[in-house]
């Protein structure tokens, strides 16, 4: 059976390698265009092209393409507006950028042989970007008052240090879970797809070679095939859902510092 982990390997595209270079602290590194590069560039280009096509020649009564774009746009606008409030518009571009790029890479992963968001390096970059923005906005808006985030004024005074410590710990865990959720979902889904697809081929080969289970392998292969179809449908849902969840959680974390102390 084919190795289910092999699809996640980053390797240079043949013919697009540009030799090696010595980088201080990091040692000798290879300069090349990798499959990860290509997947991310296609996702980026698709997002930009789609949104350009959607907004060029915008009409008051939208056509089919424009209403598809408007649905995407107003969905994230609704999220930032309902969670952050009247200041939500200000943070909309960041959340929308995160959402469309992650969605593009997730969906492309279903069509290409490589999923960019199944690389921990990519998801960690998104999570670190989000949490640095949260800390930056918190310090810019409230100065040292940012640390009131860890001082829950609604808890009884005796319990406040304990609750505050837990709040601090959960704040530190936010970027970790943010990165791991996207990474784990994409990795797990694609591994499961590959394993069931491998069953179809190896059990089919077993049946036709007359080894092992013989013809009894055929119904199991057919069952695996239905699992592949069902899982593919599920993965499309997960691809959208994880991008949406990432956007919603980024908005919730932004809301914590934007509306610090307003208690909603």
């Amino acid at each position, binding site marked *: 059976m084919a190795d289910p982990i092999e699809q996640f390997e980053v390797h240079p595209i043949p013919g697009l390698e540009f030799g090696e270079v010595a980088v201080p602290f990091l040692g000798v590194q290879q300069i090349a265009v990798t499959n990860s590069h290509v997947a991310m560039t296609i996702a980026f280009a698709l997002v930009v092209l789609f949104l350009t096509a959607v907004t060029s020649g915008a009409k008051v009564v939208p056509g089919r393409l424009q209403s598809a774009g408007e649905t995407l746009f107003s969905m994230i606008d609704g*999220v930032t507006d*309902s969670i952050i409030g009247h200041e939500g518009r200000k943070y909309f571009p960041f959340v929308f950028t995160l959402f469309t790029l992650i969605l593009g890479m997730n969906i492309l992963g279903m069509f290409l042989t490589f999923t960019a968001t199944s690389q921990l390096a990519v998801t960690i970059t998104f999570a670190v970007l989000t949490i640095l923005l949260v800390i930056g906005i918190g310090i810019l808006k409230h100065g040292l008052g940012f640390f009131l985030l860890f001082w829950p004024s609604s808890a009884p005074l005796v319990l406040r240090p304990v609750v505050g410590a837990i709040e601090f710990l959960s704040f530190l865990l936010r970027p970790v*879970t943010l990165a*791991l*959720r996207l*990474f*784990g*979902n994409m*990795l*797990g889904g694609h591994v499961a797809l590959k394993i069931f697809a491998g069953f179809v081929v190896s059990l089919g080969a077993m049946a036709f070679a007359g080894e092992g289970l013989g013809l009894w392998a055929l119904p199991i292969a057919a069952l695996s095939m239905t699992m592949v179809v069902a899982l593919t449908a599920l993965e499309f849902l997960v691809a959208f*859902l*994880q991008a*949406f*969840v990432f956007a*919603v*959680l980024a908005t*919730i974390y932004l809301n914590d510092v934007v509306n610090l102390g307003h208690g909603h």
Partner: protein
Amino acid sequence: MEAEAAKYIGAGLATLGMIGSAIGVGNIFANFLNGALRNPSAAGSQVGNLFVGAALAEALGILAFVLGILILNA
């Protein structure tokens, strides 16, 4: 017991953590349906909360999965 065998057993045991997240996600959707059937008009506005809750519960299962992968490759 060989170290290699223990590693596989450990990775298998680590994935048991997914049981908890499965119970959590099941609970969330069951309770959502419970509430949604009682008051269908309010259900639509809570779909966002539903998915965020499911994602938060699911993240802990993903942590167990990542732990399993880490043990397997240790």
